[in-house]
């Protein structure tokens, strides 16, 4: 097992090298941050000084070399806006984003799996259709719109929950639900189709014949096998979840990495963009390795492929 994990870790090295370099080139293509960092009527001298201070006046290959050298030591440079290490800015927002992502994954699983199971149990019934449609609708509403609607209804209209910010559990509900809205349909869909498969299997027939209660057959035996594809979907969707975080955190004033990312991208704060993208890549890789490990644990054949 350990060997397998090590092999997987090694295989991620090219990604970890390629992502920052591509990101570096893309950010340099997206414009000169000097124009955005200094006030519009700043003098040419001030601009030159700013460029020199942040090494923006050097040829691009030289900047790239320097960047790689520093990145290798885990140093993504100083934020152009804050004058602080970019990695510090990312790290201090990490907890908030993790909290939000975990909560929304929790919601997605807690809602998606039961929906999928019930839909599969009553295949093609009214309930099945209703669930499938309701779930598709929630997926079809853009998250920025859903977020604002939820604020209007649950925070302003009903006064049940706060409009934004972080702190108590109540602050977490609306953003987590908004972020989960894109995931629930996927999980429900995958659960449903896997459950349909499972419920047709021989062991289910045997279990039923043995007189086991239906809910045990469904919720215990079949669901366990349907779990692997669900985990795969979650692994694949981590990237999408990270993109979703950008919009959700902005709408709900959530102090996380996504909000930092969008502000840095708009302001062309290159070091921060690079740090965030690198962090996203690591999250993506780690989650997918975990998924693979779970896979390998459940199905030993994977390890020897």
């Amino acid at each position, binding site marked *: 097992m350990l060997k397998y994990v090590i092999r997987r870790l090694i295989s991620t090295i090219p990604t970890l090298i390629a992502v920052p370099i591509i990101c570096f080139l893309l950010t340099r293509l997206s414009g000169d941050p000097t124009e955005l960092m200094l006030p519009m*009527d700043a003098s040419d001298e001030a601009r030159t000084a700013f460029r020199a201070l942040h090494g923006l006046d050097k040829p691009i290959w030289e900047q790239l070399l320097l960047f790689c050298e520093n990145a290798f030591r885990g140093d993504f440079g100083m934020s152009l806006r804050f*004058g602080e290490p970019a990695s510090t800015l990312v790290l201090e927002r990490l907890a*908030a984003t993790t909290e939000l992502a975990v909560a929304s994954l929790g919601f997605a699983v807690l809602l998606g799996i039961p929906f999928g199971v019930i839909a599969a149990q009553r295949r093609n019934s009214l309930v099945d259709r209703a669930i499938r449609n309701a779930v598709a609708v929630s997926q079809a509403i853009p998250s920025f719109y859903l977020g*604002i609607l939820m604020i209007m209804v649950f925070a302003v209209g009903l006064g049940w929950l706060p*409009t*934004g910010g972080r702190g108590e559990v*109540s602050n977490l509900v609306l953003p987590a639900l908004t972020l989960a809205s894109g995931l629930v349909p996927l999980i429900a869909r995958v659960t449903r189709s896997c459950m349909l498969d499972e419920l047709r299997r021989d062991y289910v027939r045997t279990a039923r014949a043995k007189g086991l209660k239906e809910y045990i057959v469904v919720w215990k035996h079949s669901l366990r096998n349907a779990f692997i594809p669900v985990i795969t979907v979650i692994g694949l969707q981590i990237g999408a979840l990270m993109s979703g975080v950008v919009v959700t955190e902005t709408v*709900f004033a959530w102090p996380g990495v996504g909000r930092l990312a969008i502000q840095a991208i708009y302001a062309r704060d290159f070091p921060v963009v690079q740090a965030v993208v690198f962090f996203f890549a690591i999250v993506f890789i780690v989650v997918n390795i975990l998924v693979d490990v779970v896979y390998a644990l459940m199905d030993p054949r994977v390890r020897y492929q």
Partner: protein
Amino acid sequence: MAKIKGRTSNRTRSLPLAAGLLLSSMLGMPLLSKPAESATLTIAQSYDPQSLWPNFSTSQEQMNVGNAIIESLLWVDPAIDKAVPILAERYEMVDPTTIKLFVRKGVKFTNGEPLDANAVVQSIKIFMDKAITPAYARDAAKIGSVERVDDNTVLIKLSQKYPAIDLLLSQIYIVPPKYWAEVGPEKFGREPVGTGPYKLKEWVRDDRVVMERNPGFWGKAPKGIDRIVWKPVPDDTARAAGLVAGEYDVAANVPVASAPQIKSRSTVSLLSVPSYRIFKIDFSNLDKDPGPQHNKLVRQAFNYAVDKDAIRESLFSGIATPLRGQILRSNQLGFDPAIKDYPFDQKKAKELLKQAGYPDGLDITFKFSSGRYAQDKEVAEAVAGMLGEVGVRVKMVTLEAGEFLTQLNNRDLGAMALRGSAPQDDPDAMLSSYLSTWRYSYINDKNLDELIKAGSQELDQKKRDDIYKAAMKLMHDEAYMIYLYQANDLYGVSKRVRNFVPRGDQRFAVYDMSVE
């Protein structure tokens, strides 16, 4: 393997139960939008400060927060529209380029350092250092040198004659020199020490800045406000919603679309402040941008074709001030009441276009930003539609805010572009961006250049007024731009807050505020 099986099945069985518990506990929660404690003032702005040291950048949000801790020499008070002394007791002009400044006595920083001439001299030196305060380089260039006379007197030598001294001195924030030397600008920005009415308690990035009363404050502290909490809320609609829900006492920069919602509540009110920001569509007469906009008749025709009143009345629900055919505002030096804006007259516009040699209309490219200014996209679309009605075929190009700024600075905006300008409150600050040598000027007019240069050095108020009036007349006759409107900043304010008076540049100070 068997072990894993057991574990998984246990977990899955309890899933629905856990879901139910979690949901019910969350929905069953009582009213959580708790009203802030009476001693706490909560202010929501668009952005988190980059630093708590006001001179770190020129962003208003950042300065508003930092200014509650670190104070400037003067403060231009919007309530009386005059500079009031803060850390400078007063100043006098020894000659046209020498300022004698008297430092307030008996003031201490919260770390015990005294406020004296030395602190002021050091702070001005920091202000003049381009490497530390690049954002203020243009202001700093006006200062030649600074020296300490005695414990409470400082002599500032200007590098040129400069009419707007109040404005200059109000930009300079005073820091404790020993502590500054110890920690440097970055750490100072995170853990500031000042003379202001509040001191920093905690700062959770992108979430909140919490301040509490400075017991040793030299002046009269705001009544009933023991704590100030600053919240950065980026989404405009969400910020207004938070105010209505009672989470914030003040919400800056609320959108026009939220105005009815705020007005309909009895606990909050809407405050509308005429902004220093004026909006216009600039034409380029640079050689690199050939096209119909080089023809004066075409520019005038465009001015007649756009119904500016309709834009103000509808898109801004009337909460915007008309521009009177000039870029200076009615309370500014140089404003000429004799100038009237081009009225809305489609017939006249078509006639002028025909005269200019475009009887069948013309094609033009129009660049604007999306999301840089309030409703910029809507205004641009409305203007393009109106121009379409007189036969102008407009090719619209939206630019992401950062890209817009970059193109603006590189003079790449082309034939016409929607721009909001919010310079400091002095006519020179507005006019100098139209100098042909200015980095992002799209006008090249020798006569205008001369007027602007003359105005920037003229110390006699009457003469200065006349010079700028002449400039206004010239620009209006040439129709170098479509004059749109002066924006209004909207604030949502809880009824328990008193004396919240923001300035037209979205700056406000907490000195006179109180909470009931």
